[in-house]
């Protein structure tokens, strides 16, 4: 067995990977929900740092905004609704199942490591081909070119997934969104200062994505965060619910399909972009995607936090509160 020696690895890389692995283990094994969620938030932030180390700044921005920001907000908001009880089940069966799972997991990791160790450090052929074709795509940033020109079918399907998630969440949260009454002066300051800054940042990320790291997804995540903060600070116009919000969300998907049809009419291939109008088309679609994704994320957040006023538990709680007050 060869000795594991770290020949030319940066100490920083080792530290970051170690921290990521430790927080991953913590997020998974801690039994309390609150602690597991906090460990997961730290995991997301360290992951964003790791993506920056792997020369993927677009992915780092998106991970920080979505993994740490929006997904974290979703989980934290879903936390305090219910105290988890420990279900009664026999401890011995749990120990056996866990042991079997751990053994199978170790075997899988060993198999994966054996396969992965055969990978060479030579890049695949597709990368240089894509990089070379960027100048024919209409934008100058490689990732935006890949996302919105070379593989825009993937982006179309992804916006479809986002739309379906938003529609599903709207259908499941059948009752009212908890209204925010009387935000204090601090929240009003937040609404006035931070929300416009976030909207401006989203706009900049959107436009900068054509030539630098950025793009529609990062801008959409920041816009979603701005809408959520605006709602929590009492801005009534930012209520991401109802038919108006759904219409905005669906617009992104419909516009992308129409772009595909335009491409079909212009060049004979579905979703192909002609170099003459590729830049304008990409920027227009990215704007609609940003608004769509932002509204969808805000809808998901509000649906996850809505109060269900039709349940038996809620009715009894309200009766108890009414009876106990006088």
């Amino acid at each position, binding site marked *: 067995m060869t000795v594991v020696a770290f020949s030319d690895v940066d100490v920083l890389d080792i530290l970051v990977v170690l921290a990521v692995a430790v927080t991953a283990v913590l997020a998974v094994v801690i039994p309390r929900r609150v602690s597991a969620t906090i460990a997961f938030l730290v995991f997301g932030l360290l992951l964003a740092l790791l993506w920056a180390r792997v020369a993927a700044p677009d992915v780092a921005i998106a991970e920080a905004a979505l993994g740490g920001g929006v997904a974290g907000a979703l989980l934290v908001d879903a936390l305090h609704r219910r105290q988890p009880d420990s279900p009664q089940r026999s401890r011995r069966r749990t120990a056996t199942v866990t042991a079997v799972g751990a053994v199978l997991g170790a075997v899988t990791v060993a198999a994966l490591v054996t396969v992965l160790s055969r990978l060479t450090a030579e890049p695949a052929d597709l990368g240089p081909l894509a990089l070379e074709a960027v100048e024919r795509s209409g934008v100058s940033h490689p990732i935006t070119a890949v996302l919105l020109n070379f593989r825009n079918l993937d982006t179309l399907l992804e916006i479809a997934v986002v739309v379906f998630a938003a529609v599903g969440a709207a259908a499941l949260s059948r009752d009212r969104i908890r209204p925010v009454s009387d935000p*204090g002066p*601090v*929240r009003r*300051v*937040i609404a006035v*200062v*931070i929300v416009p*800054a976030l909207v401006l940042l989203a706009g900049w990320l959107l436009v900068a994505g054509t030539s630098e790291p950025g793009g529609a997804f990062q801008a959409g995540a920041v816009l979603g965060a701005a809408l959520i903060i605006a709602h929590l600070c009492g801005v009534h116009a930012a209520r991401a619910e109802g038919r108006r919000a759904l219409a905005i969300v669906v617009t992104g998907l419909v516009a992308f399909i129409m772009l595909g049809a335009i491409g079909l009419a212009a060049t004979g291939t579905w979703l192909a972009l002609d170099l003459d109008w590729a830049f304008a088309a990409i920027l227009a679609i990215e704007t609609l995607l940003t608004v769509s994704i932002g509204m969808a994320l805000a809808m998901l957040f509000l649906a996850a936090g809505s109060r269900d006023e039709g349940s038996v538990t809620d009715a009894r709680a309200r009766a108890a509160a009414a009876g106990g007050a006088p």
Partner: protein
Amino acid sequence: MVIVDIVVIVLLAVGVMFVVAGTVGLLRFPDLASRLHAVSKADVLGLGFIATALAIHILATEPGWAAVGVVAKLALIWILALIGTAANAHLMAGSRRRAEAERGTEA
């Protein structure tokens, strides 16, 4: 150039020390109000030192208009972190005080 490197390293070390001190306060203080006090003050100050170190580094190594842009962005980051931390601390402490007041009137 060596002077600039030393200044940058010292500022970074001071910033990291403040952030670590804030985290130690978060872990060791007894109740929410003192923990918020430790974290919101020390963390933002540490971030300020780190941002200053980065600004000095970029101004020294690549002077020009691009560096001014980076310095402006660092200043914006620090201001936003300041506003966000202060607002968060106020909101958390306020909601805890309201919850305690309700529990006080029930019991």
